[in-house]
């Protein structure tokens, strides 16, 4: 640096020395100087902001900890102290109710098992470094819901004979899909005309029997309507035709279609056997559930159902098939256009009016279906945003390699699209989690509902009970939502590595 370079023909004779960075640009002091006090305006804002944060934080700490009452047997403890803060003894006394609602005391171990198993498998699933993701996912999505259902309700589900006939009919009917899956739509229909006609007659009889009462006869140890009996016979014949025809061919596609159908049907039957089996558990009506338990059941079911349904709806909305597209658009727009409260009211009050007499859906189940479909509609639009961001070249490259539609979507498009919309998806999850508080209006006691209800307990009436209760509710909701938010940030950062696109 010492010799002044002349404009032409200059060559550096020795390397310029490497010097340390100037003081106050690195380390904590440097960080504060560049980020907090870089200009007079910035310094003023920093001081104002910090004062505000300290003021709020001090208020909370003063109320919750310094003036808070921590011990006591009833309201006297909180009322006795003048100008007291949070009434914590109330929370200690009611905490079990916040978590379990009115779930029978001696049965709460069942809820605990569900909580613990759920937390452990979810945590192992969420940590990318742990192995066996496939088995973990299988457990979490198939075994765990069944286990939870049996444990929480007590299982031993009582299916009416009408329901059993309906399920049997539906399973037999599904056999018609086998030839179509094996040979494609046109050839599948061609080869299986007779079975399709039989099934068509069965569906027609079923539709008529909904409006016209049919004579009943005594069979299978009970009364069964003639229409049902004829339908079951017709559908059995149709199923035998569809499957029998397939089993005789040596075509690999036909074989795998048949195996797929057999697998699906056995899985459904296995599930039915499991939920109707008697495990000797005491039945616990969903009316008795409450608190965090209801919040988690509604939110988790909603989340787990909304994502796949939303993806299907998003794909449907972009489909070339007009009927599929129209159905998706109508579904999404109807559910999005209706407030969640209306959906819940409809599910709890209106739906029973339309259902045939005698069918009795559980109230919680109805709320679950309502929230799941509602959030699926929102999810669909989020996912569609991601799908639109994938360049057309990705579809073309996948097609040019001979990938089928579903493989292309599964392997190429969705992994990229979903990655883009992780913030949106988690946003939907978080808002769904908080929306579960609305089930209060149809008489289900979620976390907020049960805290609200506990205020009326004369044993704990005090000026601070309400504030403390709402503070705990807010804190518990915040913990779950904040965890989801942080995890989504972590996943975003993890998935972003090495994927930066160049040249596209």
């Amino acid at each position, binding site marked *: 640096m010492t010799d002044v370079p002349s404009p032409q023909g200059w060559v550096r004779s020795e390397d310029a020395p490497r010097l340390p960075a100037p003081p106050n640009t690195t380390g904590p002091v440097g960080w504060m100087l560049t980020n907090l006090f870089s200009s007079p305006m910035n310094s003023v804002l920093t001081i104002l902001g910090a004062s505000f944060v300290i003021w709020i934080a001090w208020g909370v700490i003063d109320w919750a900890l310094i003036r808070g009452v921590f011990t006591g047997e009833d309201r006297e403890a909180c009322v006795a102290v003048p100008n007291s803060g949070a009434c914590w003894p109330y929370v200690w006394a009611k905490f079990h109710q916040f978590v379990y609602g009115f779930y029978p005391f001696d049965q709460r171990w069942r809820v605990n098992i569900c909580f613990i198993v759920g937390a452990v498998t979810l945590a192992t699933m969420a940590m990318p470094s742990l192995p066996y993701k496939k088995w973990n996912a299988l457990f979490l999505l198939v075994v765990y819901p069944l286990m939870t259902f049996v444990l929480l309700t007590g299982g031993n589900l009582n299916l009416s004979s009408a329901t059993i006939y309906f399920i049997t009919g539906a399973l037999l009917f599904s056999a018609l899909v086998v030839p179509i899956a094996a040979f*494609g739509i046109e050839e599948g229909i061609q080869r299986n005309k007779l079975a399709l006609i039989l099934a068509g007659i069965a569906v027609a009889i079923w539709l008529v029997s909904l409006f016209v009462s049919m004579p009943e006869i005594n069979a299978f140890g009970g009364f069964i309507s003639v229409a049902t009996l004829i339908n079951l016979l017709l559908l059995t014949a149709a199923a035998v035709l569809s499957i029998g025809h397939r089993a005789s061919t040596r075509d690999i596609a036909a074989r795998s279609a048949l195996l797929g159908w057999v697998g699906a049907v056995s899985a459904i039957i296995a599930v039915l056997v499991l939920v109707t089996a008697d495990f000797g558990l005491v039945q616990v009506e969903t009316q008795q559930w409450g608190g965090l338990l209801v919040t988690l059941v509604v939110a988790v079911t909603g989340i787990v159902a909304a994502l796949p349904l939303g993806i299907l709806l998003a794909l449907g909305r972009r489909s070339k098939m007009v009927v599929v597209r129209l159905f998706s658009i109508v579904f999404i727009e109807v559910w999005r256009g209706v407030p969640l409260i209306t959906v819940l009211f409809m599910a709890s009050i209106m739906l029973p009016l339309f259902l045939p007499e005698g069918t009795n859906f559980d109230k919680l189940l109805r709320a679950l279906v309502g929230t799941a479909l509602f959030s699926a509609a929102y999810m669909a639009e989020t996912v569609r945003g991601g799908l639109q961001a994938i360049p057309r070249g990705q579809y073309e*490259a996948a097609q*040019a390699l*001979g990938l089928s539609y579903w493989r292309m979507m599964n392997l190429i498009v969705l*992994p990229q699209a979903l990655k883009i919309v992780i913030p949106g998806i988690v946003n939907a999850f978080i808002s769904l989690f908080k929306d579960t508080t609305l089930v209060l209006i149809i008489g289900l006691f979620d976390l907020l509902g049960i805290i609200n209800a506990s205020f009326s307990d004369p044993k704990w009436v005090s000026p601070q009970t309400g504030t403390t209760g709402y503070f705990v509710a807010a804190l518990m909701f915040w913990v779950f939502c904040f965890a989801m938010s942080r995890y989504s940030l972590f996943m975003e950062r993890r998935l972003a590595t090495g*994927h930066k696109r160049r*040249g*596209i």
Partner: protein
Amino acid sequence: MAQASAQRVEKNEAGEVAIQLLGVNKWYGEFHVLRDINLSVDRGERIVICGPSGSGKSTLIRCINRLEEHQSGQIIVDGNELTNDLKRIDEVRREVGMVFQHFNLFPHLTVLENCTLAPIWVRKMSKADAEAAAMKYLTRVKIPEQANKYPGQLSGGQQQRVAIARSLCMNPKIMLFDEPTSALDPEMIKEVLEVMVDLAQSGMTMICVTHEMGFARQVANRVIFMDQGQIIEQNSPVEFFNNPKSERTKLFLSQILH
């Protein structure tokens, strides 16, 4: 021209014809983008298609693996006529590889996964076999050491070579190139062209849409000139470049050869 290709059909009835287009027409809305295209490509033949932008070259080769639908005429690829029959389309796509102007690698998969995806899912190869084949082709395009990187970490030329390897992994009978070097920086064009020349010399049936006239001279059996959706002229490279017949060809050549 229709007569010429008709003769060609008769001559090659014994399965020598790889691709056959008969009276193909295509419209984008009201716009007639392909007009009465007749073309027959023999096995092992290497064809370069050139022409001004908007002349329908890309649309033409995209019709060959049904990325675009044609509205009239026949396209027969490797004995399969392209119609709405999805099975036929799948069969054709399995045998026809395609390389795009913008590479279209899958950014969420590594180079190796890009190459093994289709063999595993479409050809039902085992993972080990697919990976061995992928490494073979990555070696052939001279980037085996990049196998575990993501496409975003490679240069344009490297990405395009991966794209070629990805197509080759499906062991295609026919390769289509849609302006493979147009999106590349000048110093990277050569490395891609070298790979393409190597492929051409191995006897692959190739159709290239490109403006690389040096490549056309070196490897093409036939050069086709398109303008306004029609085939204007086709000839051997020597004749095409030294002795163009049509005025439009002459004008085009004068514009691209300085």
